[in-house]
């Protein structure tokens, strides 16, 4: 499991320390355990708070389809001209590492076990994506 590094409720770093924005791009890797006990809106708030602080958020386990739907909806309500243009999001399924049954795959019941990368739309651009590689260009604002 990756080291967990996420935003606190006040936009702080994971340990309550202020993020160092001395010129880099902060990447938050959110571990599965941290996500497991969160309600849908808590996950969405954590993601959008991170992205609105110009961070790249990587989720070890992705969101459920219902949570993805709510993420789009809440993102739309927060878009503001010259301030926040929305998000760029990429995922790829990790079906081979999950215990998904053949029937599940046949029926299109995709597991939520998928690595997800989310960033500010004006800072992250997907260069290439296939079933086992996401290549993205991240720029400083």
């Amino acid at each position: 499991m990756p080291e967990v590094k996420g935003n606190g409720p006040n936009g702080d770093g994971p340990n309550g320390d202020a993020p160092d924005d001395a010129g880099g791009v902060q990447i938050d890797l959110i571990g599965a355990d941290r996500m497991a006990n969160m309600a849908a809106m808590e996950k969405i708030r954590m993601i959008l708070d991170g992205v609105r602080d110009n961070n790249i958020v990587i989720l070890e386990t992705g969101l459920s389809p219902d949570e993805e739907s709510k993420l789009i909806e809440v993102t739309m309500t927060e878009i503001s001209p010259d301030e926040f243009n929305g998000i760029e999001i990429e995922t790829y399924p990790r079906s081979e590492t999950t215990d998904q049954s053949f029937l599940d795959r046949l029926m299109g019941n995709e597991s939520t076990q998928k690595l997800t990368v989310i960033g500010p739309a004006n800072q992250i651009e997907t260069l290439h994506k296939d079933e086992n590689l996401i290549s993205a260009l991240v720029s400083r604002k």
Partner: protein
Amino acid sequence: MGLFTNLKDSVSRVTDKLFSAQEPKRIGIYGPPNAGKTTLANRIARDWTGDAVGPESHIPHETRRARRKEDVEIERNGKTVTIDIVDTPGVTTKVDYEEFLDHDMEKDDAVRRSREATEGVAEAMHWLREDVDGVIYVLDSTTDPFTQVNTMLIGIIESQDLPVLILANKTDLEESSVQRIQNAFPQHETIPLSALEGDNMDEVYEKIAEYFG
């Protein structure tokens, strides 16, 4: 008194069931911006009711409110299917007003349009979770279908167990590739069409009757 109350409840349940079975199904037309959703909605509405649903445009996010055309009766193979068509704004995860400035729009108009577009997308997502009984997913067959928005939307629709018909639109254009869409979503049937030219609409109506009848 109790007997009458029970009888009344039973009658009410039966009539509710009878009437709900006759209620038209709400079919949402979803897809990314500029896929031709409104052109398709207008084509269906004009073919079966004589009216249009809304204005079409090459500028993204022309449709910024979900629009419903009620009681569209489609006849196929001696069977009549009645549906409500819900034309929805194109779904995206980002809206930048500067994109509209490229279409000869003043900044104020572009900002207003982007605000309305974001409200429209949020509204479309809400309809998808709460208020539609089936989905027609429209894709522009001249563009890459392997986008995150398409993957997420199809995943959301599948998770709701909604019947979904995938349409590969704009087959009248030279760059059209229906096969690319079939490859992207092999778990669903893909129907080619040109909503603008009216090509292959017979098959589209057959499938609408089959999927949503």
